[in-house]
């Protein structure tokens, strides 16, 4: 919540007026403008990287919308990307349906998957629900394995046949192959998701979703049906995630378990959301972009690590995992909330929200605990 207290009603004009916005919102808008003009100045390969990054960021937002807001942590969000992507891909491959039509159908299928995953969340909470989400995509992969002629099993649709890429629309070249058109398609999907999710989370529903995370019984006691809001979050998350999965497959990506459904994808999505800041949507968007580009960057580092004599590019995924672990451990609240928090603290120090633990950051507390442990280990007393 912001610090202002005037109670007059704001007009829509005020809300959407960039000059009236807070600093971080203005920076965000500038960022979006930058995304629009970027292709004019970057080489094609960057456009390709960025398209994939935008799709990935969309995945991350779709996760954040349901897990970051309602607190029902999904460990298998790849299910939605996979259902969306594979539905669309298989419709095209086996029935010849045009990708432009198949992709929205894929999104609907993923929305239905969202509904089905949402139901258990009404009954089973916390880690147990997470377990269900964790194994659901794995079950789906096994089902795929059972019908290799349709799905290509572990290897993806590519082993069954060629799925069409998006064809050109009028004078615009095919976003399936032209890096810049592909980029704008990705940007479109990204912004669509961003606008939908930001609008809903900043509207009253967002308040209810986070309230569910805090205390579901209280939500019911204030007259709202938590189940309805939860299922809604799952369905919308599925729709958007599925759409992104399908759009990704028909443009810069492909329809493979390793790109859409694999456990690692679901984990990366969570990690990216945590890095960016859970329960913010914008944090998820930035975390997704950052995370993806960081990985590309690390893959291309030429430096060879001394002593072990291994190039970074070859073991980037290992290093990346270690870096991630560090981030998770020392910056668990995420990058964006941290930045926004410091921004606010600097610009309006008097409004400093009370810090429960005496102003220490989580990192500081953890280091302190470690030193305590060390001291104990060498026979000293804990403070």
């Amino acid at each position: 919540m912001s610090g202002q207290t005037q109670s007059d009603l704001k007009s829509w004009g005020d809300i959407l007026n960039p000059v009236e916005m807070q600093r971080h919102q203005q920076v965000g808008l500038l960022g979006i403008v930058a995304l629009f003009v970027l292709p004019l100045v970057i080489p094609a390969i960057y456009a390709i990287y960025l398209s994939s990054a935008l799709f990935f960021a969309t995945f991350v937002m779709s996760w954040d919308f349901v897990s970051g807001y309602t607190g029902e942590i999904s460990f298998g969000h790849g299910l939605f990307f996979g259902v969306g992507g594979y539905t669309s891909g298989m419709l095209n491959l086996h029935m010849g349906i045009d990708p432009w039509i198949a992709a929205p159908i894929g999104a609907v299928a993923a929305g239905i998957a969202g509904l089905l995953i949402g139901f258990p969340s009404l009954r089973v909470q916390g880690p147990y629900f997470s377990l269900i989400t964790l194994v659901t995509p794995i079950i789906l992969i096994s089902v795929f394995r059972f019908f290799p002629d349709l799905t290509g099993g572990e290897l993806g649709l590519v082993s069954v046949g060629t799925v069409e890429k998006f064809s050109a629309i009028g004078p615009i070249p095919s976003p399936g192959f032209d890096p810049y058109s592909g980029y704008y398609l990705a940007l479109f999907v990204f912004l669509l998701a961003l606008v939908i999710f930001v609008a809903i989370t900043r509207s009253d529903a967002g308040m209810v979703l986070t309230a569910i995370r805090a205390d579901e019984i209280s939500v019911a006691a204030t007259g709202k049906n938590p189940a309805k809001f939860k299922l809604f979050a799952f369905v919308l998350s599925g729709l958007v995630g599925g759409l992104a999965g399908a759009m990704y497959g028909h443009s810069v990506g492909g329809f493979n378990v390793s790109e859409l459904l694999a456990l690692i994808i679901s984990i990366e999505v969570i990690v990216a959301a945590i890095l960016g800041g859970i329960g913010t949507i914008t944090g998820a968007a930035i975390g997704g972009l950052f995370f993806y580009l960081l990985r590309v960057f690390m893959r291309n580092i030429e430096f060879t690590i001394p002593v072990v004599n291994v190039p970074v590019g070859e073991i980037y995924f290992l290093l990346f995992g270690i870096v991630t672990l560090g981030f998770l451990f020392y910056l668990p609240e995420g990058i964006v909330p941290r930045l926004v928090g410091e921004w606010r603290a600097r610009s309006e120090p008097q409004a400093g929200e009370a810090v429960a633990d005496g102003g220490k950051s989580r990192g500081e507390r953890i280091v302190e605990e470690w030193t305590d442990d060390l001291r104990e280990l060498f026979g000293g007393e804990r403070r």
Partner: protein
Amino acid sequence: MGTALAGCLGGGNGNGNGGGGGVPDTITIGALGPADSPMGDSILKSAELAVNEINENGGIAGADVEVSTKDTKDQPGTTRSVYQELTTGENVDATVGIFGSEQLLSIMGNIAQQSTVHLTAGAATPEAPALVEEDYETNKYWFRVGPINSVFLGESQVQFAADRFEQMGWEKIAFLAEDYKWTEPITNNIKSQLEEEVGVEVTEVRRVAEGTEDFTPVYDQLEADEVDGAYTALAHTGTTALVQWAQQQRPFGFGGIHVPTQLPSFYEATQGAAISTFSQTTATANSEVTEKTVPYANAYQEEYDSLPVYTGYSAYDAVYMIKEAIEATESVDSDDLVSELEGMSYTGTGGNIEFFGPDGRFPHDVRYGADYSQGVYFQWQADESGEGHQRVLWPDDLQEVDYQSPPWA
């Protein structure tokens, strides 16, 4: 690795690939393969080896050659990304390599889009030439140097059976194929072909599910059927199948196409479990498939202290074929190179390499046969000191030894 792991995120929109004739000052060749696996490692190293040799001998048409190697991580998504880095980002003049049919198929569209010549060195799917046949103009930039495609692999297995099963004492066999796309052309007709053309009894053609970890029930079945051998088409699940066969000392032979056992280091890695297993492969280090085979294997061993895998032979040949084509046309223009490669007959390390023409049976695929590439069958046999060696069983002109049954059978 990565002598010229060309600039991070580098490149620009410089000289297009398709544009004009002439040879630039520097020619860049991209090599792709999964660095973690011996198959990919061998591709990347062989491409480097070939490029180093070429540079020592004056380059290509006077131009310096650079190689940019990329790790595909054995995943379609990464393969696509790194292929785009090579072509869109670094503007390489041609690419070689790729291991795994799925990886190849995932970039067929991009190869067409980039119009950059690609010479495959490690994927056997017949769908790639099918795409060339379907839409020649779009897909003509694709060629395969090796291995022979899986239809030919099946034919080769029938031929080997006809030539050797009698001597091996294999009268009753079971065919064991992993349930992957690449084995489909093999298993489709193998039973009838083996029964009609070779006259062996085939108890079953079993497709083993991907991810199978326990072959005990399978072998129980084979043992109950009293087969003489398990004739295989295995790659991904090959090691587990082989190790369990050896550990359980099953009383039948084991071999056919078995990708892991092709690795020169496999005998040692499995502590001898590979004994008596046999497999088709492009060439072995000491088989004189052509006069270039052994010198290449020796050079590779000298440089990298290990022996090349089958994909290495093809990647090495592929780089040289690109050199020949550029020198013949004095151009790096992709269309020029395509026409040149179509007519080329090149004696490489893996045989006499020629491609099918646009109207051939498998357009732009490597031709199979005694006069072209046909590969060899070898068996792991131990010498007196207990060290394992890959000894050639087939074809006749290269045969080193006769087949031996497993020591426990």
